[in-house]
């Protein structure tokens, strides 16, 4: 009887049912689209952040660079001018620790031993400036007409002038990252895929091997098996890595020990990458590290996310603020309309429900009938809303609007890791926005549909339960 009565009533009042279901559908569809777009924003932001420090890293520990002390840290290059006719190439590289003050390797162990830390790995970020070219001395030519120098002011010697000489040189500036090859699961290299050759073996802690970023390798025509010379040390390219986001953390990756030797930074690291045991307790792990490892800056992905600006940030804020409020407003309005329409429908059926009560139907049975009808409306609205929402999310994903994310900027020097290992300037990344619909979103939508039905049913059910059979029958007269 319950289902027969319910089905017939919904069919009889299908226009009202459609209005209620459509309102709920609109609200639920908006929630799905906003939620999936927010998910997409989150994924885009994760992608941006992962490109900076790799997968699995929850936070980094660094030490802010001290203020520049003038010439002391500025690289100086000295080249001897060659004798006449000598056009041999000279080169000189300067390897500098990039970005941050260094931390001792023992700090890595100390961070790793903190409560809630699953793993910690150190890395050293270097910047290499290589100047190479020809430097030739000018040639003195004596005047044919008379003696004496035109320059120098002497009067008793032969006259003449210096001709030719100069320099033809190339400056190559690239970044090198010293990675702990014994822990390949953590650190910036995890945001890249090896597309040629291989990655480091755990045994290659001090091997002269290098993994090159694909963009840099393309520019320098490196491939697996090529050699690269850094500060006079020759490394063999064992693999080419392609960054997931298209923007790599460094141009070359070498074993940490080799980097420490090149950078004259024995047992030093610039960044410690930390993985928390529980991703929900990142804040408490951060506090523990800050408390127990003094003089360091701990930067979580949430901190870094705050430094993301550009259209991604704008769109993310828009989705979080306007989208959420709009969805909520539509949902609340839909719930209210559903409730009022259901209540109004009960008012029009006073005689019907009064008759049933006179026949011996308990209030609970009448209320269940009303709530049941409202629930079906809610579920139909939910199904429509899910279909609409999925279509909306599909359209967003199909269009995949491009968003720009600027990371870092002015905060880079503050000791955090905006900009990735050692980066101190803003970097701009292009990411495509998608709108992935998660199971959680669908569960949320179904939950909202049920809630909508229950709220509408509560309005109507409350009205129906308060009906007295006598009151209902009085309307007959």
């Amino acid at each position: 009887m319950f289902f027969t009565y319910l089905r017939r009533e919904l069919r009889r009042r299908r226009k009202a049912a459609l209005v209620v279901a459509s309102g709920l559908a609109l609200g639920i569809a908006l929630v799905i689209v906003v939620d999936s777009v927010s998910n997409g924003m989150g994924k885009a932001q994760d992608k941006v952040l992962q490109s900076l420090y790799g997968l699995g890293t929850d936070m980094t520990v660094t030490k802010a660079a001290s203020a520049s002390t003038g010439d002391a840290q500025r690289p100086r290059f000295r080249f001897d001018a060659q004798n006449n006719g000598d056009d041999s190439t000279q080169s000189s590289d300067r390897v500098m620790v990039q970005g941050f003050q260094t931390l001792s390797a023992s700090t890595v162990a100390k961070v790793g031993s903190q409560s809630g830390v699953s793993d910690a790995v150190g890395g050293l970020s270097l910047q290499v400036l290589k100047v190479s070219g020809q430097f030739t001395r000018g040639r003195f030519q004596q005047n044919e007409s008379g003696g004496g120098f035109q320059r120098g002011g002497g009067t008793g010697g032969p006259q003449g002038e210096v001709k030719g000489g100069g320099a033809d040189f190339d400056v190559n500036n690239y970044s090198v990252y010293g990675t702990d090859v014994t822990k390949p699961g953590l650190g910036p290299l995890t945001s890249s895929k090896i597309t040629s050759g291989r990655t480091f073996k755990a045994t290659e802690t001090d091997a002269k091997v290098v993994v090159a970023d694909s963009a840099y390798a393309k520019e320098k025509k490196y491939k697996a098996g090529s050699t690269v010379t850094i500060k006079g040390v020759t490394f063999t390219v064992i693999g080419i890595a392609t960054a997931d986001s298209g923007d790599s953390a460094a141009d070359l990756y070498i074993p940490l020990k080799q980097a420490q030797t090149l950078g004259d930074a024995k047992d030093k690291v610039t960044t410690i990458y930390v993985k928390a045991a529980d991703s929900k307790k990142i804040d408490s792990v951060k506090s523990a590290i800050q408390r127990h490892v003094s003089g360091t800056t701990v930067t979580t992905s949430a901190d870094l996310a705050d430094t993301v600006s550009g259209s991604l940030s704008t769109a993310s804020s828009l989705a979080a603020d306007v989208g959420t409020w709009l969805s909520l407003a539509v949902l609340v309005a839909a719930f209210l309309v559903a409730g009022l329409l259901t209540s109004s429908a009960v008012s029009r059926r006073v005689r019907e429900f009064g008759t049933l009560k006179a026949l011996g139907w308990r209030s609970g049975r009448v209320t269940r009938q009303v709530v049941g009808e409202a629930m079906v409306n809610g579920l139909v609205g939910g199904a429509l809303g899910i279909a609409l929402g999925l279509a909306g999310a599909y359209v967003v994903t199909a269009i995949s609007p491009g968003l720009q994310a600027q990371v870092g900027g002015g905060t880079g020097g503050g000791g955090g890791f905006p900009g990735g290992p050692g980066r101190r300037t803003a970097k701009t990344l292009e990411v495509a926005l998608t709108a992935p619909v998660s199971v959680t979103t669908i569960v949320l939508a179904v939950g909202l549909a049920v809630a909508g039905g229950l709220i509408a049913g509560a309005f109507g059910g409350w009205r129906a339960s308060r009906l007295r059979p006598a009151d209902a029958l009085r309307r007959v007269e």
Partner: protein
Amino acid sequence: MYELNNVTKRYTRGKDTVHALDGIDLTIPDGDRLVIQGPTGGGKSTLLQMLGGLDRPTSGEVVLDGTDLARLSEARLTRVRSESIGFVFQSFNLIPTLTAQENVETALVPLGIKVRERRELAAEALRSVGLGERLGHLPGEMSGGQQQRVAIARALVKKPKVLLADEPTGNLDEGTRDEIMDVLERLWKEHGLTFIMVTHDSTLAKKAPRLATLRKGKITVQENAAT
């Protein structure tokens, strides 16, 4: 058997108090057939509501078979209505979306009777009022007389002790009225019911063995020697 002792019902409308029933004392033996007459606003429908357990008196007792309906909990009163009292209304009060058979079944739903048995009982009740061929018809597809027959079948399908009818022929033409009254009279006799009917129709009132008249909340009962 009904026993009404000093039953009053007052309604307050703003500053005015209306005495719909004013100290009613009435005994209705089992199997009685009582017609209640009176002017509009005299308290007829209010008395019927008290008898049917649809409303409670302001004071006094409405005793049905030893149980004071005025003092029962809502749940028990609902149970008494579902088991012992059948209603027939002037406007039939059928559920428009349910068929004749399903409408009759609604009276059996509170009794927890299984679906198959419910259907059989409903069909049998409809056959007893001459609607065996109309089981699957919706109220909108039937005439007023047929709809009232469905309502009578609904009232009697649970085999109640009491049948309360509020102007059961008020919306019907003269010919149909007589048909319905014939059906009601036959079923009253067949089932041994206590049949209480409110009507404005003097023709029907004259046929009743007992006639109660309600004026301004007061009741007078006359025996009809002619019947």
